[in-house]
């Protein structure tokens, strides 16, 4: 029993954090609200060069041949930076399903893969994607961007460029069915859970920073019990969400028979943690 990441995993996480702090500061995120694609372009390329985009692809396709357990910390960092890119869809959901040549292009970041799953009528970043992995019934299909019809719609998050997608499934484009579909959905949910945990942590940090310096009634507002207790509650919620996320990543990486349950627990708890951190950040 050992519930901790390896030094290599942590070092890689730190490297991604450094990269995103440098290349994806708040100005870059804000710029994506109004630019052409809603994305960052240069950060996408950096992530490819670092091996992040191809992290879970086999080495034969130019990937690092690693698992969701290695990816989870990296996705947490993308949540922390609020990275405006479809990295969960591209790397966690789609990459393992693609044929080797396409996988290689995706790992290199020379193409972008978006994903559209049943339950959500919109595909984020479909306009700038080269390939779309789309669900029909209990199967996934990889369809070229040219072969679909898009109807854009606006999200409140300016960087999330949404589109409704019209397309036709065919045997040629089938990439996953039944179990492989379930696995892909789990990887996606886990990826979002990791991002939410990273985002929650960052919101708490920024709020603490503000509360340490903003003064009212002659004292930093962070010295008032009401503010302290809001933040303490948010921090506790996060403390008991993160281990569920890491456990779910481990379960996916090891094909644990309970992995679907573990992913659901992780997603539910990290959503609540992020919502509480947001409320706290908003009010303080």
């Amino acid at each position, binding site marked *: 029993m050992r519930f*901790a990441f390896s030094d290599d995993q942590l070092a890689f996480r730190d490297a991604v954090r450094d990269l995103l702090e440098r290349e994806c500061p708040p100005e870059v995120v804000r710029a994506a609200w109004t630019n052409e694609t809603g994305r960052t372009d240069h950060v996408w390329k950096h992530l490819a060069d670092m091996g992040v985009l191809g992290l879970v692809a086999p080495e034969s396709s130019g990937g690092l041949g690693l698992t969701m357990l290695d990816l989870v910390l990296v996705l947490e960092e993308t949540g922390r930076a609020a990275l405006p890119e479809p990295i969960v869809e591209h790397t966690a959901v789609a990459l393992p399903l693609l044929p080797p040549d396409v996988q290689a292009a995706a790992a290199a970041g020379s193409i972008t893969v978006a994903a559209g799953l049943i339950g959500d009528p919109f595909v984020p970043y479909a306009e700038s994607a080269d390939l779309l992995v789309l669900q029909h019934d209990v199967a996934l299909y990889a369809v070229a961007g040219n072969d679909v019809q898009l109807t854009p719609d606006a999200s409140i998050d300016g960087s999330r460029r949404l589109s409704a997608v019209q397309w036709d499934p065919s045997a040629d484009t089938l990439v996953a069915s039944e179990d492989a579909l379930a696995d892909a959905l789990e990887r996606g949910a886990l990826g979002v859970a990791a991002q939410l945990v990273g985002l929650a942590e960052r919101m708490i940090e920024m709020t603490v920073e503000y509360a340490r310096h903003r003064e009212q009634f002659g004292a930093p507002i962070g010295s008032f019990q009401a503010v302290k207790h809001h933040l*303490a509650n948010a921090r506790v919620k996060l*403390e008991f969400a993160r281990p569920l996320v890491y456990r779910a990543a481990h379960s996916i990486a*090891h094909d644990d028979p309970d992995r679907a349950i573990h992913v659901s627990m992780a997603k539910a708890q990290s959503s609540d943690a992020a919502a509480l951190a947001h409320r706290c950040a908003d009010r303080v």
Partner: protein
Amino acid sequence: MDLTYSAAEDAFRSGAREWLEANVPSPALPSGDTRDGFAQHLEWERKLFDARWAVVSWPEQFGGRDASLWEWLIFEEEYYRAAAPQRVTQNGIFLLAPTVFEFGTPEQQARILPKMASGEETWCQGWSEPDAGSDLAAITSRATRDAAAGGWRLTGQKTWTTRGAFCTHLFGLFRTDPAAERHRGLTYFLVPLDAPGVTVRGFGRLDGDEGFAEVFLDDVFVPDHDVLGGVDQGWRVAMATTGSERGLTLRSPGRFLATAQRLRDLYRDVCEHADPALRDEVIQASIDAEAYQLQTLQTVTKLVDGEQIGAQSSMVKLFWSELDVHLHETALQLLGPRAELAGEPWMNGYQFALSGPIYAGTNEIQRNVVAERVLGLPRK
């Protein structure tokens, strides 16, 4: 990352499970917070001790098995899974013993620990006083030096002492230097409750049990060898105990995993007639119990790596105490009118759970600690 147990650990689990299945009393013992129930619980403690399950993590010489932290967690899981009796010795084993291991002399360890493990001597905690609760440093009970007799004379009043009316010994803080600043000048004493000058008065709780006591000390002599960890060092010594109380040892995940399992069983029994919104409550409580277990595994990994946990223990205390209330409240809602029966175990558990946010440092105090020491917000 490796989330599996070794073959040796699995064997340890099987051994514990088999022994518990064969020995846990059925029907359950009456509450250990009554005089009669306490005596029956002491018999159970003796049985645990004889089979060397009373203090698995202690060294063999004191009655333990030298079990690792992992094995201790496993034992706790099995203990609660088997619905074994509450540990009436817990204040000694979980609160005092870590301090004795850290600060006690070899003579103290040899004298105190085996009898604590066997239940021959039972310990209650003498922290709170009428005017010192959350503000523990406001303690006014005092100890004055009796150099001629080689010891100290203790005078004062301790209150909210759990099971004080049934225990043989008390550990607590007394002021040895009245001139020193609040947190200084306190000393940690070990006091036999049959010493001359001690009066113990049990008092009824709302539910009729005599589970708390007030302890009055009037010029009680305590020899030097019953000072734990040095004169005027009491605050530092006591905080080490408070740390373990809040953190790992007092409320292990096994306890809440077992309660969550019973809650799911209850839900299955009644769900046909229950408000569907309660399903989400059952699920949330179950997720929280798992989260608590996983967070503990993270913490134990850190401890095994030689890291400290520190103020993180305040987050742990906040979490389990609120979880315990939530588990039991959900159960009462599922039970409906039957919840009010005096013999209903969920109601008894609820009443105890309600005290969780208050004892071992109120949750208001813990939130201050998290804000100041984990998040770095300013004290004032």
